[in-house]
């Protein structure tokens, strides 16, 4: 029976949408928040002639039991859909206004809507997992998340089941679900690099563009425009055709140079332009950015506390006026943003404050701190203690409450002795000159040295902790310190090619080094440029013969 075997699927395919009738093209049943006024059902006439909707009944089905269909709207004698046109039945808040304004009160899945034509033809569109077959045509469509609609894609798809014809999409009442020409920016994908450029520093804007239309877009068909809105006024930063062709459904990343931004907080608005774009609403996206330093800066980071005081960071008000710290957030690489609380008063210019993971523990560990300037941040984003493949351990990010970047510090944990915070001094982040940290105080100045390299003590007991200090002629340098015994054999390397500031000091536990005379050799070179220097000192480790 080959003929019948071929015809049956064809007949089944024809069951969902009655022939030569407008069909259900889009159902929006679950808005974000209260649905009232936002719901709509869009009808689409794919035929070559206008279709009357007189007597057409739009019914909603409650999938929790059989036969629960209730009328929502009936077509009047004057209602019709032009050839290739759309007719929207929806709430008062739908934009553009529907042809028929009705409070649909559709249920969230598993439920259904159906069209019942005066002569008895029926089209059912079900969504969600149904128990009763009457609520869908074939397999039901997906139960879409709040804010998205159940859209027929393409608009005249009729493949034999709701699951094949419908998919989640951005609501588009009165417009094609899959227009012929539509390019869109993917919302939330814009990113500035660097995230907070310095004044005069060139920046780049990255993002994603997608072809949501049915027509392939050749290279150069889409133009990307980026406009900045700093306090000084609007400024176009970029207007350039994208050089990549986009097939229907394809997305492409872009990463375009913007040049230097104006200093300060500002919006960046990106727009993609395509001739004949049928949905301009999805062509724009924006990003709140800052060029140059923010009003609050990080001055010390304790990411690996060793005495139970919890993690903490020290911040300084670098603006000219007092700052309300509750208007800022603190975060790491993740998306969770902690908000300060439990401190008191505004932070005066040039003043320091501490943002703490465990305020009580911190105050117990540093009892001399002014509790009014110690703030608990909740939720606290735990800071990583070891570097990843990027060479950084984590990010510490300060933002204003509206998300504007204020300061971002990527720190490396490499070479930082356990329990020692990082502090900002000499133009970089370095292990604190006071190993215990200096919350609410500026960094302790390194000791003045009479030479390039000095040992805290030339005689140490076995197992003691040594101390060394250096003063180099370069602002940043790479430093190596090695120990040799009197026979010239290298026995230890306390510091290996560490990035250090011009002046610094470091504790060094001797560990199991045997008693004897040693030569401590310091070698340094500038981090950029040429030159090097080395100095050595004799060190005696005292102990009994073994």
């Amino acid at each position, binding site marked *: 029976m080959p003929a019948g075997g071929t015809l049956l699927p064809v007949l089944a395919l024809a069951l969902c949408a009655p022939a030569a009738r407008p069909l259900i093209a889009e159902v929006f049943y679950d808005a974000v928040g209260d649905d009232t006024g936002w719901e709509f059902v869009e009808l689409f006439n794919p035929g070559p002639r206008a279709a009357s909707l007189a007597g057409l009944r739009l019914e909603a089905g409650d999938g929790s039991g059989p036969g629960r269909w209730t009328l929502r709207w009936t077509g009047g004698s004057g209602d019709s859909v032009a050839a290739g046109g759309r007719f929207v039945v929806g709430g008062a808040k739908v934009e553009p206004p529907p042809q028929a304004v009705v409070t649909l009160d559709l249920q969230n899945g598993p439920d259904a809507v159906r069209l019942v034509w005066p002569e008895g033809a029926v089209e059912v569109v079900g969504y969600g997992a149904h128990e009763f077959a009457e609520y869908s045509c074939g397999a039901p469509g997906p139960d879409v998340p709040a804010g998205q609609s159940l859209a027929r894609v393409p608009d005249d798809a009729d493949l034999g089941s709701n699951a094949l014809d419908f998919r989640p999409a951005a609501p588009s009442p009165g417009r094609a679900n899959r227009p012929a020409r539509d390019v869109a920016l993917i919302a939330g994908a814009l990113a500035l690099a660097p995230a907070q450029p310095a004044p005069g520093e060139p920046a780049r804007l990255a993002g994603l563009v997608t072809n949501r239309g049915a027509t392939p877009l050749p290279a150069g068909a889409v133009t990307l425009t980026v406009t900045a809105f700093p306090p000084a006024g609007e400024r176009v930063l970029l207007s350039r055709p994208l050089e990549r062709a986009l097939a229907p459904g394809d997305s492409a990343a872009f990463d375009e140079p913007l040049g230097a931004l104006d200093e300060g907080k500002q919006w960046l608005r990106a727009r993609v332009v395509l001739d004949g774009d049928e949905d301009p609403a999805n062509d724009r996206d924006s990003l709140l950015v800052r060029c140059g330093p923010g009003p609050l800066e990080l001055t010390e980071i304790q990411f690996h506390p060793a005495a139970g005081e919890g993690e903490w960071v020290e911040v300084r008000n670098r603006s000219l006026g007092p700052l309300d710290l509750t208007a800022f957030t603190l975060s790491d690489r993740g998306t969770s943003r902690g908000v300060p609380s439990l401190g008191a008063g505004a932070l005066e210019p040039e003043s320091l404050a501490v943002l703490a993971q465990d305020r009580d523990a911190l105050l117990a560990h540093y009892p001399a701190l002014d509790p009014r300037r110690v703030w608990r941040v909740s939720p606290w984003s735990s800071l990583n203690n070891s570097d990843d493949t990027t060479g950084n351990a984590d990010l510490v990010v300060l933002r204003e409450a509206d998300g504007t970047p204020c300061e971002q510090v990527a720190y490396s944990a490499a070479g930082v002795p356990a329990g020692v915070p990082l502090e900002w001094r000499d133009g970089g982040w370095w292990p604190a000159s006071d190993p215990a940290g200096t919350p609410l105080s500026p960094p302790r100045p390194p000791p003045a040295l009479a030479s390039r390299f000095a040992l805290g003590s030339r005689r140490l007991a076995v197992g003691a902790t040594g101390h060394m200090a250096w003063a180099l002629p370069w602002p940043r340098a790479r430093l190596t310190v090695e120990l*040799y015994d009197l026979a*010239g*054999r290298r026995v230890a390397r306390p510091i290996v090619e560490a990035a250090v500031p011009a002046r610094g000091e470091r504790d060094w536990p001797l560990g199991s080094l045997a*008693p004897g005379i040693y030569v401590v050799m310091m070698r340094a070179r500038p981090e950029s440029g040429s030159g090097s220097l080395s100095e050595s000192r004799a060190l*005696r480790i005292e102990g009994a013969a073994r």
Partner: protein
Amino acid sequence: MRRACVITGAAALPPGAAVVPGPVLLARLIAGVALVALAASHARAQDFSPPAPAGTPAGPLALIERGLPDTISGVRIEAATVRWFGLPDLATRALALGGGWRTVRGAVGISQTGDPELGWSAFGLALGVAEREGGAALRVVVRRDRRLGPALGSWRSSSGVGVEVGGGVCVAAGAGLRLWASAPQVWARGESPPLERPLEIGVAYGAHDATLWLSRGAPASDAAADHEAGLALRSGPLALWAAARDRPLRGGIGVAAGARGLVVRAAVESHPALGETVRLALGLGGAP
């Protein structure tokens, strides 16, 4: 004038006087080497380091430093200074008096290393026997921190005073070969010596006026062994030598000259990281 562990070559006097040791003495010396090797702990000392090639030790400083006697009889005086890696606060000055009568060899010396803050003074004594077939000696070094002051009573202080006892043995194996072992710190008490000096064993081969030597120092602590190779050349009153060591790889050269009983020695070793160590010595009696 005779030398123990005689070999032909740069260190041999008279030239070409190679001998084969008697089997009984050879067995005793080999047993001695083995005993020293078994008993050796990690060695420590650097107080009486002369500018001399390891393969041809000579003089009272070497006798105290390594416990290896030579066959030269008579009275000798030797003074030396060492500047370690160019560090001005880490220089050694040493003076030793040695002598030989029949087969008995002895030396006594004093030295001072470093400045008063981290330096120390040392008194050394060595006593041994030497024949053409071989020799052996015991050495004792007592050290005392310079910061303890000059009072003699401070030598009895339990802190800052240390003593070490060790020795060396060498044997002429015939055919120009000479073997030696030196364990300067078999026993140590009190304040630790400035450097661990483990057991060193070596072999030298001499022919005509040239001597080649190889030595190996046992690993100190958990480190690897040290190795040294050298070549010494002799021409009349003049001797030259060059040596190379590992960990890290480095080299040194030395020169010695003698006239009318006065011997001058100098050596420099270049370290790739630490710079140069310079040794100078002046002796009365003996040969270069």
